[in-house]
């Protein structure tokens, strides 16, 4: 099922639904923060200071919209490696993100053990991610199962790419959540590529949401560059999950504005035309234009915000760069939990 915000809340995409102007500006702030941080990481990579970057550029609206529908400190998130905007909204700081980029000892995700963008933060209920794609989908079902056993009402949210839907764990995890009616939201961020492989070589359907009915749960496809639509769709999925009605599969159609990662060169498989035209779908520009239109954000305010965020990212970069590397002696720590 493909929905637009207008189907859900008549007039919503014009009005921003029931969100206050302050909240909308806050959402914009997170999108911008994610973008600026992400761009900075590429600069650091190109300058030889960060060996690996993988981006959320183009996915910001899908992530900020969804995360705003969750309750921070209560709900669990299991975001995949493009989830920078997700973890920022859930409470990770730019400095913490940069500590991960530089693999510093105090990186909260892994103490410099994992590649950047493998987010984890126990206090924030962000569950540790690995690199083999799709495993978190099964974990998410399990977190939901435990919640049901404990009688709690936290909701579990996980994200993954459309390529990852080809994995067995996608199927097994969603199926379990559906059978047991678990409070889990599965967000597929469909950017039409798995590294170089286009969507049509992953699936013979046009939308990942078409798979919801195969599991007996709603499958909803939403324009993932439209923050308010994603927010609204997720809000409803959260309500459904919280009241015990079970899982939802959401496909957020996004664009991948960068190469797959700093190790990739997408000009070998995307045409010049495509590389250019995708820029038109930039969710950040889209939401900025919306806020300007609605007179919720002036040019001057945006400029100030950019300056403020720029400074914040400078400070985060500097703090993280100066943080100590992991002590080689710590290699042997935490093989087993005590």
């Amino acid at each position, binding site marked *: 099922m493909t929905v637009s915000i207008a189907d859900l809340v008549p007039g919503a995409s014009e009005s921003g639904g029931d969100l206050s102007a302050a909240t909308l500006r806050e959402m914009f702030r997170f999108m911008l923060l994610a973008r600026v941080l992400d761009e900075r990481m590429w600069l650091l990579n190109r300058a030889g200071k960060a060996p690996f970057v993988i981006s959320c550029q183009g996915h910001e609206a899908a992530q900020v919209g969804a995360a705003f529908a969750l309750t921070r400190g209560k709900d669990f998130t299991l975001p995949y490696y493009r989830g920078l905007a997700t973890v920022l909204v859930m409470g990770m700081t730019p400095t913490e993100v940069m500590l991960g980029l530089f693999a510093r000892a105090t990186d909260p995700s892994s103490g410099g053990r994992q590649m950047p963008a493998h987010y984890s933060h126990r206090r924030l209920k962000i569950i540790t991610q690995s690199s083999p794609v799709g495993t978190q989908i099964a974990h998410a079902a*399990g977190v939901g199962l435990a919640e049901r056993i404990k009688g709690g009402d936290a909701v579990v949210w996980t994200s993954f790419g459309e390529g990852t839907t080809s994995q067995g764990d996608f199927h097994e995890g969603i199926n379990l959540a559906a059978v047991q009616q678990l409070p889990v939201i599965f967000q597929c961020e469909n950017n039409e590529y798995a590294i170089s492989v286009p969507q049509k070589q992953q699936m013979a359907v046009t939308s990942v949401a078409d798979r919801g009915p195969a599991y007996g749960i709603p499958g909803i496809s939403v324009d993932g560059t439209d923050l308010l639509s994603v927010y609204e769709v997720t809000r409803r999925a959260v309500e459904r999950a919280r009241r015990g009605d079970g899982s939802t599969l959401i496909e957020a159609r996004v664009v991948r504005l960068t190469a797959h990662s700093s190790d990739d060169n997408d000009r070998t498989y995307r045409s010049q035309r495509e590389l250019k035209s995708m820029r038109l779908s930039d969710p950040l520009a889209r939401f900025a234009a919306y806020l300007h239109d609605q007179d919720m954000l002036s040019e001057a305010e945006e400029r100030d915000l950019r300056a403020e965020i720029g400074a914040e990212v400078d400070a985060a970069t500097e703090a993280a760069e100066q943080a100590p590397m992991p002590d080689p002696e710590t290699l042997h720590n935490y093989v087993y939990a005590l």
Partner: protein
Amino acid sequence: MPEINLLEAIRQGLDEMMAQDDRIFIFGEDVGRRGGVFRVTEGLIDKYGPLRVLDSPLAESVIVGACIGAAMNDTRPIAEIQFADFIAPAFNQIVQEAARIHYRSNGDWSVPMVIRAPYGGGIHGALYHSQSIEAFFAHVPGLKVVAPATPYDAKGLLKSAIEDNNPVLFLEHKKTYRLIKGQVPEHDYRVPIGPAEIKRPGEDLSVFAYGLMIHYCLEAAQSLAASGVSVEVVDLRTLRPLDVPTILASSRRTGKVLIVHEDNLTGGFGGEIAALIAEHAFEYLDAPIVRLGGPDVPAMPFARSLEDAFMPNPQKIIEAMRRLAAY
């Protein structure tokens, strides 16, 4: 002390732990109404309800994967893999996820869960209901691997495994389920994960084994005693972390070592034990380190004639012991 079989010891262990701690739940195929295909979980659904004794879909990756997630949300899952052979689809979740989560999160998250897996042959289970799987998993840092041989150890180790804050692979030899009986105290006790146990002390040679093979080795040792050969039988009980001090001490004392397992010889866990001894007890050795394992064929066939040819048995062990003693 009442005498019960190994299967009952495990069921008791599950039952007593579930009664004490309502964070514990069981998740696996047919574990509910059916009580498991071996009847290990029989009756538990009636006592603890279908939320804590839950039939999973027929999908091992998510059995383990969901238990990992659940363990991170403050419960203590016990996954049942119906036959150890069917753990293979869950290999990714066990090795790449369960075993690495504490390490990769720098100690932030942990995965307190048990994976019970009935393994081993000699029960006419053919290629896919007879396999030994310990070598794959005992190689993985971050996992614990336990393989008890007696009802007492099984119950005590199971309780320790459930209380452990790490993923523990709990291997139950199918042939021991009803065959092996033993005394089990009525009071609450633990057998700690880690220490091996000398099941029979001896002077002339040391035998290292676990699971069903312990019983075959004890039988063989008994039979050699008649001819004046004194065999020490060490039950490893835990394969990871391995009790290296006990292994080395026994090897140094007797100077002769036999390692027995049912799993295929090449690349089996016996290689690790031999290597440790060859490195750290070398000066004390009076003879080559001998391994006796299943032959290097893909798995144990169904036909009785072929199954018998595959399985290590007391007779084969006796011969190996004799040769070694005579060296």
